């Protein structure tokens, strides 16, 4: 199986979630992250002292999928998260050797 990890803009998360459910993906795991990249951070001022924050809030989406679905999932995420502006994020795919559903102990695709 494959693990698709995507870093997207937080306000795009809902679109990504919907795109994936439309594909029939049944579940995903999301977390809050801070991104560093071409998209610069911003500057804050407190009592005349300037603070530069290099990190930008992003959402991290993890989806375990069958090997066959990986490419479609990536494409769906790219399509849904895209704003054509710097900072849209990345998607990467890594191999998964086994997946287990805790509730039932099912393995592999059945655990999805």
């Amino acid at each position, binding site marked *: 199986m494959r693990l698709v990890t995507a870093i997207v803009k937080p306000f795009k998360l809902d679109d990504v979630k919907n795109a994936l459910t439309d594909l029939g993906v049944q579940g995903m795991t999301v977390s809050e992250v*801070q991104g560093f990249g071409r998209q610069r951070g911003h*500057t*804050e001022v*407190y009592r005349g002292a*300037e*603070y530069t*924050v*290099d*990190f930008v809030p992003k959402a991290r989406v993890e989806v375990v999928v069958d090997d066959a679905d990986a490419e479609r999932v990536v494409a769906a995420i790219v399509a849904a998260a895209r704003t054509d502006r710097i900072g849209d994020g990345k998607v990467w795919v890594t191999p998964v050797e086994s997946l287990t559903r805790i509730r039932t102990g099912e393995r592999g695709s059945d655990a999805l």
Partner: protein
Amino acid sequence: MEIDAGNTAWVLTSAALVLFMTPGLAFFYGGMVRAKNVLGMLMQNVFAMGLVSVLWATVCFSLAFGDGGPLIGDLSLAGLKDLQNVTLPGYTGDFALTIPVLAFCAYQMMFAVITPALITGATADRLRFRGYATFVGLWVVLVYSPVAHWVFSPTGWLFERGALDFAGGTVVHVNAGVAALAVVLVVGRRRGWPREQMKPHSLPLTMLGTGILWFGWFGFNAGSALGANGLAAQAMVNTHLAAAAGMLGWLVAERWKDGHATTLGAASGAVAGLVAITPCAGFVGGLSPLAIGGLAGAVCFLAIQLKFRFGYDDSLDVVGVHLVGGILGSLLLAVFSDKAVNALGADGILNGGGGALLADQLVAVGATLVFSFVLSYLLAFGIERTIGLRVSADEEAEGLDMTQHAESAYAFSEVGSMGRVG
């Protein structure tokens, strides 16, 4: 009539209590917005404490209580010129002050501060700071001062006509509520509303604001007796009971409609009750505050649903609570008013006063609605077209805190707040 220390102590205390309401309002509203806009909200309210106070001392107090005609005061008291020795026009005979004019001026100043601040709830998350600052300054001079003169000053035309407003049902709540509607119509909806979810980022902060508002409202209403006497005590009891009944009224209504009694509902209902009792506080007695407050709680709960029906984004329900609650209270006063409670008042319908008072109340409410709506709309429109009153789409997405004030409200984690100085 000479100064009474007891009355002065109570009015000074009340002035302090009313001042405290503006930060309270800031927290009440601030807790309801998203975390990226909370400082923008707090700033809009706190800034009113700064700008409005300066304008009050320089011109507004004089425009509201100076010796002009029935429509507006004059500039004779501008800059607080020797208030030690002056007697305010109309404040003679039954209305003679037993407190220093400066104490009265300070007390009224706090009303002028919080009234425009009330508007900020309706326009949450989308006002440009510079445009907002301009609006507030012009509004308090051009809208608040005249209306305060009409209703509060014994020389004002609505006061002389016999309209009653103990502590600001029309001057404060109807006035700010309808102005809020006008500004909302000018600046439009928040992007994503009503589809997108914009849930309160900190209800405990909102509850803090609620506690401060309830506490301060005793100064607002009971202080309007301008003395520490039976009338002030009556106003305090009425204020508290209306808040309590407002809470219960709202909770019952929402439990019946949505199946839940919510914390935010309890807070909102209490405020609705407080708004509605404001004009009535010193004119009604017995259990009428329970009726007035309870009705206000239920009615305002239903009223806030209208924005979805009609599609105006009254973001934190200033129209639904302050405009509707203010009108409701001003009119219910004509029902429950009782001369046995306040000889300077009038008897309402239930006490055999007939409809006379109701007519006066309708005139007062109507005049305030029209005048405030029109001027507020024109002001907002003019500012939007010149300085700009609404932020850009990107600024709105990034939030007011960052874009208007270059700050962020919270930094709980080391990771979240990394960066370097300079």
